[in-house]
């Protein structure tokens, strides 16, 4: 199984989720994060004190799927999350050794 870890723009979340649901993905986990990358944050000025906030609000998606589905998930993610402008984000793929569904104790791909 693969853990697919994607950092995307927050307002793209709904679109991405729908696209992934279309692929048959049954679950994922979402976290609000702050990103640091080529896209620079705004300069904020509070009463004359400047803060160049390098941190941009992003959303992180974590999603485990079986190996065969992974390429299509990555592709779908890339398409649905892309706007073509800087800061669109990244997708990383990691190997997962095991998965367990807490409710039933099912393991492996049955757990997803």
């Amino acid at each position: 199984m693969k853990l697919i870890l994607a950092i995307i723009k927050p307002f793209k979340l709904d679109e991405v989720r729908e696209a992934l649901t279309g692929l048959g993905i049954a679950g994922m986990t979402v976290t609000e994060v702050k990103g640091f990358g080529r896209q620079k944050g705004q300069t904020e000025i509070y009463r004359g004190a400047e803060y160049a906030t390098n941190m941009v609000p992003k959303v992180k998606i974590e999603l485990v799927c079986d190996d065969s589905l992974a390429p299509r998930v990555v592709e779908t993610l890339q398409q649905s999350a892309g706007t073509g402008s800087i800061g669109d984000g990244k997708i990383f793929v990691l190997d997962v050794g095991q998965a367990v569904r807490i409710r039933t104790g099912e393991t492996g791909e049955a757990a997803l």
Partner: protein
Amino acid sequence: MNFANKIAAGAGAAGLALFAALPVWAQEAATAAAAPAAEAAPPAPFVPTAEMVDKGDVAWMLVASALVLLMSVPALALFYGGLVRAKNMLSVLMQVLTIVCVAALVWFSWGYSMAFTSTGTPFPSLFGGLDKAFLAGVDPTTLAATFSNGVYLPEYVFVIFQMTFACITPALIVGAFAERVKFTPLIIFTVLWLTFAYFPIAHMVWYWAGPDFLHAAPTDMGLLWGWGALDFAGGTVVHINAGIAGLVGCLVIGPRLGYNTEPMPPHNLVMTMIGASLLWIGWFGFNAGSGLEANAFGALAFINTFVATAAAGAAWAIIEQIVHKKPSLLGAVSGVVAGLVAITPAAGFAHPGTAIILGAVASLVCFFFVTTVKKKLKYDDSLDVFGIHAVGGIVGAIGTGFVANPAWGGQGWIDYTAPVAKAGEFDLAGQVMTQIWAVGTTVVWTGIVSAVLFLALKYTIGLRPSKDVEQEGLDLAEHGERAYNM
């Protein structure tokens, strides 16, 4: 403020404009009448003196003014701000605050003069001239009339109280197109809209010569006031006026990106609840202050503002329980605001019992508009300025014609054409028709002015930020800040 009156325009008073308002200052008036001065007044011009000012009235009106400012900042700002997404929170707060600041300056500069004088103008029944621009001629010794013969306020007090109304009305509008408007054009709109919509309508509805002067100058009054339209505290001037402007604005600007496809839940309902609560508190100043005196009629307006609102809040919760099986806090506070809007024109006229009915009815009608009509017609009135302020205001304005009926415990209207004001005869059907005409006039006037202004701005400097800015949120893009850095 703003009781209608009957005008015997020469011999044959024509048209439907023959009705008018509040009954019972007669008692106090009677006392005043006992003074020979008042009786002798018609020939020799009446001159109010400093002794006609009661410090109790001054105390109450200063407090009422502070309460109405409280309604704008922070109450309205929070009520609206809590309903938008976090990325637009500051933009709403900033819009409301800046509008208040600008409106106060405009009021000082030419607003008061345009609204509350009738000299130096080609159309004295539509708007005033600039004789009191920059408060020329106003000082601590000048006085303003109340609705009672022989009872006066320092003119500054009246200027202040009315200023707070001019501050909140344009601020109400921004809710209709929250999350998608550029800041500078909005402020320009505010200045123009006040000038061409608010001041004229305030003049038409509320301006008149005063109880000690009217019989000597029986045409010195605003158009709608002359018709006999009843608007105790601003149902037409404030709520319908702002609500229609909001609707026009949201239509001209168009819906938010992602409207109806993305979820846009309120980001912080706690702020909305604080805002609604403080609106309620402040509204006592708005409504009970509109009687201009600390007396039993102010108290009547106060209790009506209390119970109509309670009924409206409960009614919205109950209808939600029925329709959605869950009464929500947002529902209850929406009801509260709908009730406050609806009782505004009727506050000094209704009996508490009919006030409760008016509040509940308005709440249900607003519920219907906000949940059903808006969905059907697909306009994006972000925070329901039309659905609550215009709709609630219309229900209230027309309802005022009913609840003022003395037969149902209402206060009727006062005939100020006599040297000493006295109760007038109430004609239910006629009064309701007058109310409808007043509503219609307001809707048309503000609708046209708002449309012209919004379209002019749209096609010149532009009203709407770029897609990117809208997606990123106005806080960072327009104001360079974010609300929360937790």
